[in-house]
């Protein structure tokens, strides 16, 4: 087993961890704000559920990217693939867009969602607009994931 494989797996791990952190922090922030609203007005749960859940997608993107890496490497087949140093580094780098994109956008999306809770509190009928604003942040996590997948598919093993 060469160092190439280690580096490739490290890429998958980084993608899951960083995107996961982004989502946890994001949901953490949005969740607290939603709790605050719910403590006064439990009826509004339906309105703020989507807002609170939105920052969670980054973690899923990290997971998807890592899964692609695993498939690419054929780890599930039970045989240890032979990966060169160069290939390993390529896979590692390909994982970075979703990792950092997820980390940063997750946190910021959490903040936007938390702010959106105010909208849901004041005007429950307008809460979908807050969801849309929050989803704008999502775009960049999606772009990160897209590039990661394209790069992974492009890498010839």
């Amino acid at each position, binding site marked *: 087993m060469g160092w190439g494989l280690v580096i490739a797996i490290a890429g998958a791990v980084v993608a899951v961890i960083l995107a996961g952190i982004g989502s946890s922090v994001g949901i953490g922030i949005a969740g607290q704000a939603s*709790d*605050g*609203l719910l403590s006064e007005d439990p009826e*509004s749960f339906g309105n703020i559920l989507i807002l609170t859940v939105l920052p969670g997608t980054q973690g899923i993107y990290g997971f998807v990217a890592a899964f692609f890496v695993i498939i690419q490497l054929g780890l599930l087949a039970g045989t240890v693939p032979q990966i060169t140093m160069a290939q390993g580094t390529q896979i590692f780098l390909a994982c970075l867009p979703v990792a950092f994109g997820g980390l940063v956008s997750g946190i910021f999306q959490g903040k936007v969602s938390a702010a959106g*809770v105010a909208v849901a*509190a004041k005007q429950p009928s307008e809460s979908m607009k807050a969801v849309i604003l929050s989803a704008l942040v999502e775009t960049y996590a999606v772009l990160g994931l897209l590039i990661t997948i394209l790069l992974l598919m492009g890498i010839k093993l």
Partner: protein
Amino acid sequence: MRTISYHNQKDDVKYSFAVGKIRAMETRLLDGLLFKRLIDSKDTREMGRLLVETSYGDLFKEGAASADFEALLNAELKRTYQLIKDIDPDPASACNLLALHYDFHNLKVLLKLRQSPSEADSFLINLGLYGPEAIRQMVTSSDYSPLPLNLAKAISSLVTELEKSSPPSQWIDIQLDHILYTYLIRQAEHLNNKFLITLFRFQIDLINIRTLLRVKQMEKEASFLQSVLLEGGEISKEKMLSFLEEPNDKLISSLNFAPYAQVIKEGINYYEKEKSLALFERLADNFFIQYIGQAKYIAFGVEPLISYILTKENETKNLRIVFVGKQNSLPKNIVEERLREIYA
């Protein structure tokens, strides 16, 4: 109104829960429509009935004497302060500064009545960061150490002076006002809360301008004005003193670019015509309502909490105006003229 921009240096994510809760509570503030109905109601009893359906419901419920509305409104404020304290993640938060003026009110009462402390009861307000009992304890034992060090020192030396020379009671008020505002500004700077610093600065400025006009009306000399002007505002004390000899137009023109220029211009013009500062006082209050309204755009931080407390203070002030008006059967327009803007 020109918007007052201030920069919030950091997002305080720990306030997420509190802000979420505040946003929900803000929807339950009394609105203009309800105030119209309150003004139109027959007497205080009917007002009490109207308030039963609001967030004041449990206070004004069946049987509660709406005649003692001052106590009920204070109870609502007490509840508000307690609630903010409960949800505030920071025990040394800026919100503590807002309740301090009640402690100073109680302190003034107790110091003025230090010869006969038993009479003080009916004048004390059951609010404040420390509460009337704690303040009474401090005054009777002359031990102000439960207060922050700065305050304790300043008040101790004030009391020593008081024992020595027994100055007129106005002196107590003036000195305590100085101590309070110096402390507020210093604490706000210490907390590095720009929202609060600006708020206190504007408050000091508008109080000083009003004081200037009142001193002018009383035809007092400059040295008196010098002793009553508060320090720490945007406008320096020297500049304020220089206005004493000038006509009031000068005041308007030289403060033309202040954020509260509108207050000064309209307030003073009305004052020149009617010799009444009522409009100035109301515009100043409205200015602060608009100022704290900016906290609407802040999702992370202590500002929405501050704003909620001040809004609630304004709301009870408005309710009190309507109640007193009803109790003395004042004409509707007199009451309406005096109502402060309602935060929306």
